[in-house]
């Protein structure tokens, strides 16, 4: 399963970085000129540690979605089918990583697709897409 991973040893967000990753994700993937709508949010960076909101494709949201709008694709990435989504936001409420996003202008929520667009623009090489085993389905 493809998963977006951040290396805090390299991420420079707390100091000089302009959060290119967020901007690129917002514009290229979600077609909005607003980094707050990106599927990753680099929240804080203190010396020696950082905090990022990233989807790790755990699949919890798939379990709670009442309309089967969420499914894993061939790469194991959790994808949303906008046609099926009923806008209940249980995916948002049940994501322990707060990684399911909502744009107030859209009725359907959005999330990371592990596309790697952000990886390419990070000037510090802090992001990567890795192939990790798919976790077992949890009862939530």
């Amino acid at each position, binding site marked *: 399963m493809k998963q977006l991973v951040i290396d805090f040893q390299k991420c420079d967000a707390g100091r000089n970085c302009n959060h290119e990753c967020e901007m690129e994700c917002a514009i290229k993937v979600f077609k909005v000129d607003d980094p707050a709508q990106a599927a990753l949010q680099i929240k804080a960076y203190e010396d020696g540690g950082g905090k990022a909101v990233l989807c790790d494709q755990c699949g919890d949201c798939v*379990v*709670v979605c009442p309309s089967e709008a969420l499914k894993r694709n061939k790469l194991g990435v959790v994808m949303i089918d906008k046609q099926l989504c*009923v*806008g*209940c936001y249980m995916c948002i*409420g049940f994501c322990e990583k707060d990684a399911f996003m909502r744009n107030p202008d859209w*009725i*359907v929520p959005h999330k990371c697709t592990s596309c790697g667009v952000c990886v390419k623009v990070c000037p510090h090489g802090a992001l990567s897409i890795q192939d990790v085993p798919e976790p077992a389905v949890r*009862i939530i």
Partner: protein
Amino acid sequence: MSQLVFDPSKVMDIDYTKRTEYLGQLEALRAGMRTLKEVPFQPSLPDKGYTNRTLYVNVGSLEVTEKPVTQQMKDVFIGGRGFGLYHLWNAVKPTTRWNDPENEIVISPGPVAGMTQYAGTGKSLVVSLSPQTDIPIDSNVGGFYGPLLKFSGFDALELQGKADKDVILFVDGVKGIIRIEEVEGGPEDSHVLAELLTHMYAENEKDLPNVSVVSSGAAAAHSLIGMLNFSFYDRRRKCVRFKQAGRGGIGTVFRDKRIRALVVRGPKVAGDLNHPVDPETIANTGIKYHKEIRENDGGQCMMRRNGTAHIVEIMDAYDLLPVHNFQYGSHPDVHKIDSAYWQQRCTQATVDGCWYGCSMACAKGADGLVLKTGPYRGDMVTVDGPEYENAAGLGSNCGVFDPDYLLELNFYCDTYGICTITWGTLTAFVMECYQRGILNKERTGGLEMTWGNAEADLEMMHQMARGEGFGMIAGMGVKKMKEYFIKQGWGDPQLINDIGMENKGLEYSQYMSKESLAQQGGYALTNKGPQHDEAWLIFMDMVNKQIPTFEDKAEALYYFPLFRTWFGLNGFCKLPWNDVVPADNAQQPEAHKVPEHVQNYVDLFSATTGVKIDKEELIIQSAKVYNFQRVFNIRMGKGLREHDAAPYRSLGPVTKEEYESRAERYDQQIIKEMGLDPAGKSTEEKMALHRQWRTDRFSKLMDSVYARRGWTSNGVPTLARLKELGLDAFPEVVDVVKQHLS
């Protein structure tokens, strides 16, 4: 009591996609159908929660009309149960009875219903004159019918008249068609009928979730306790499931009108179909609540794992679980049907909300049950629940502790279209009558109605479905059985009246109120009869001990019936209100009201309709409808103090064994509460003292509650109260009251 921990490894390995299919009967059913009338209509979506029109259908004359929703209707009645009562009032006369053609069944979802972002927002409210009580009954039911009806274009559906042959009413909210179809032959029982109709009316596989069916079953027509199933399509199980409008016999009215089913096909659901004024507030409130469930449910009620059955063992531990017709409050075999068992038996890796967005997801299902009796013997079925009421009513109250039999009883109640709560209480009554010699094998036509005899219990139900034998007597309900047994001279009338657990003609639901004064009032001082949805106070009274004084209890009997009425005006489910609470709730003032959640409701209503309210206005909204319903009862010849009387079993110990099972508690009460000395007194003498003390106390409670509600001591709303609520704008309402004020 220790908090139950969920262990996924213990969940039984049952394939939830497997069950007996009935689709082979589809063509035969289709062949027996013919269109009687078809009219087009303009589908529309709601604006600020309202479509601003209702649909009237007369199944006898085939009249189909649309009616506008007036501003007065919205201001005074809000929607849901309020709209139901309003339409019913206009449809009937004081002399109308349940089986007169002018009686209506009104289904209305309420302005908030159909919201998908908050838990418990898909309810339909069903109102009719009850065959059991002769006054309006209201039922709050899940499933998709109400929201899909609204998204097709109607805030309510009025059904009036009587057909000669069975009919199906189909509303196609996509194509704009209303069709009345006659149906010859074909199944009647819900689990078969609804499966066929869902597949018949869905355009394709993807469309299945957009179809919902309302149906009853074979037993509804042969009894007074018929229930309505409201379906929803379970995508993961790939099956049609149900929630029930159970109480008061609306299913019997439905079948008496010869309605076989209602079918709605709505548009594809999305998150904004209500067109609320403030979607942002709704989104934020919903997400906050979903998080609360995620964080707190596992350590609080575990609704997502057990559904409402989580309280079986709590009730047992507090001596409040109804056992053997409410005689006792606990039983050593309860562990066989407690929540630890149900969370292993119910399918867990699935989604169990009865409408989109219900993160509380209490609509559990037990899959893979192979039936042992009846017309479907050998079939493999999915059983909804069992909810607490069913575990207690069909289980402990009748001494049935075999979970498979309990599930089978639950299944047949559902598919036959009868109320599980009513069935539990009336069977418990029959069994106690059998225990005490009021009934015997001869009088029951061979049924050995001993405690725990589930096979006899099921046979009694099958008889009722076939329209034969003692099952027909049982199906009249407790009130009419009491009258019948007394008339036959089968036992001491006082004993029969004391142990028959009904008030206003409706059977008690499954809480033992004997030791909880608040719940005694919560049952008897209700509008529709003793159903806990109006005032479920036993938990805050006996477990959480949040309303200790007499005044607290009287105040709770003012506030909670009004607060809980409000759910039914809007299409909310009441469970998400207090079956999970914010982590800091206990530190809040008036914790028993769950203030943060009350604010959520205020916000959701305002954000949907654009009508700004606060928590005080919420209660006033309810008070209008609640008092209107009280006056409606009076108009129909009930609704006075005498009709709020409670059977003594609900107030105190009727028999020696009951007294002795709690002798220590009762003796202490003689000392502390009555200031007397129990020493040297016989059990009979002590029981007499209790009877006096308990009935007096109940009567004083009535006085206080009536006064607090703005009613006379005879239970009649005063003119001043009506005026205060703006109900004086309805001259007919004032007239009814005037006749009773002297």
